[in-house]
């Protein structure tokens, strides 16, 4: 039954993570005072990850275009490549790829930073000094990732569509014009509440939720780190593993709510 261990461990941490989310929500009023810390965290989690998102995003768009393009070419429908790449990137690939990258970079870094503070008495020092560690450490990280994830997702969607266009024009004989016409047409359905294409909007909602999940899981793993360097390593590994589980499970339910329910 050892294969169930990661899932049981993930479920076991849910109570603490919900408690942490609640603690953050009741402190949202202090966001303006924390703006410097939040912007530093946005820089660390978003700006320092941009190049990875661009690289992975462009190749993901190229892969989707190539995989679908070959099959579509067989039935003479390669002019639909733009539609498929645009919808896949906006609905699924963009938010998912961005979230996975953020889980591996920002989420693990949060767990390691806070975990190191935990095992080196820095968190105890904050407690002794009567300093609210949620306001100082957790809130800025969660807000920053909730901002960074949608921004990076827009970037990933855009570069992925461009990458798909490159493959479509160079390998599948679809002109840039035709590719982009079909891509933009696929994203014309407006969302009900906001002036954004519905698929883009849905993807950004997912990205926002993923950002929250990754940061809450990363911070809670760090706060619970015990036992020196070994404990920090364990917390980091747990943060990445649990984030990916949470991204996949929540992704299914959000997709179901947005497109099926």
């Amino acid at each position, binding site marked *: 039954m050892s294969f169930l261990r990661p899932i049981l461990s993930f479920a076991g941490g849910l109570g603490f993570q919900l408690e942490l989310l609640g603690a953050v929500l009741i402190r949202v009023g202090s966001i303006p005072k924390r703006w410097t810390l939040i912007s530093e965290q946005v820089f660390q989690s978003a700006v320092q990850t941009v190049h990875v998102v661009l690289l992975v995003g462009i190749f993901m768009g190229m892969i989707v275009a190539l995989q679908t393009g070959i099959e579509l070419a067989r039935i003479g429908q390669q002019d639909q490549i733009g539609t498929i790449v645009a919808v896949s990137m906006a609905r699924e690939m963009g938010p998912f790829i961005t979230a996975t990258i953020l889980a591996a970079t920002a989420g693990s870094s949060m767990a390691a930073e806070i975990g*190191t*503070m935990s095992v*080196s*008495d*820095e968190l*105890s*020092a*904050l*407690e*002794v*000094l*009567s*300093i*609210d560690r949620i*306001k*100082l450490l957790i809130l800025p990280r969660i807000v920053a990732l909730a901002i960074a994830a949608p921004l990076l997702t827009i970037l990933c969607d855009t570069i992925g569509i461009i990458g798909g266009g490159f493959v479509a024009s160079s390998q599948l004989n679809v002109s840039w014009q035709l590719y982009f016409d079909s891509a933009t047409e696929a994203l014309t359905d407006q969302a009900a509440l906001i002036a954004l294409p519905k698929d883009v909007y849905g993807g950004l909602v997912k990205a926002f939720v993923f950002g929250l999940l990754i940061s809450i899981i990363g911070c809670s793993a760090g706060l619970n780190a015990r036992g020196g360097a070994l404990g920090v390593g364990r917390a980091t590994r747990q943060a990445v593993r649990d984030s990916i589980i949470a991204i996949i499970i929540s992704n299914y339910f959000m997709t179901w709510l947005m497109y099926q329910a």
Partner: protein
Amino acid sequence: MDEVVIRLRDVHKRFGTNEVLRGLSFDVKRGKTLAIMGPSGTGKSVALRHIIGLLKPDSGSVEVEGREVTKLSKKELSSLRKRMGFLFQEGALINWLSVGDNIALPLRENTDMKESEIMERVQKRLELVRIPDSAKKMPSEISGGMKKRVGLARALITDPEIVLYDEPNAGLDPEISRSINELIRDVQRELHVTSIVVEHRIPCIRTVADEVLFLEEGRALVQVPPDEFFSSTLPRLVQFLGPDPVARANALDQ
């Protein structure tokens, strides 16, 4: 001046199967400094963490200023902690904040003081701990001894009435250790605080302590003034401090 500020009574604490405190009791009077000494693993640091409310005893009582620490609400505990300072073994500085920002943190987070007043106070504390030009340095750029000084400056920034030192000399060479001891003594003299110092080193105890508590297997063996402690003929103390009276006398002179 004989009012008891810190009182522990029959405190027991167990971590898993390891019972660290086994009925620890002692008092600290206002304005006095108690040094806690004893073999490793007898619960000296654990006792300190009970006083500041970082740990809760399995049984027994921990009173600070006449209030039972274990029964305080979060808000009450936070308010009590604002009147206390704690120096951690390694200083426990926040790594991503500069020395000045570390010291200023409690004032920035918990008060409405103006930035100019905060910085003025930070500078005074840096001067008190004899590192006046270090405000802009990062914790990674300073030595272990300086980290302890910064930790002490941070612990003193809110003008606490009680200061707890967890092995202030651990890992320091004799010269820096001597200067830290003098610093602790100066803090006592200038700020008239009540202190507990967990310490192994005899010179430190000789410099700072009004009383010495010897902890043995989680209990207080004796609590006496330093001269009486170092001249004791109790077999356990003789065994701990060294059997050779000449060596003990030399130790006293260090």
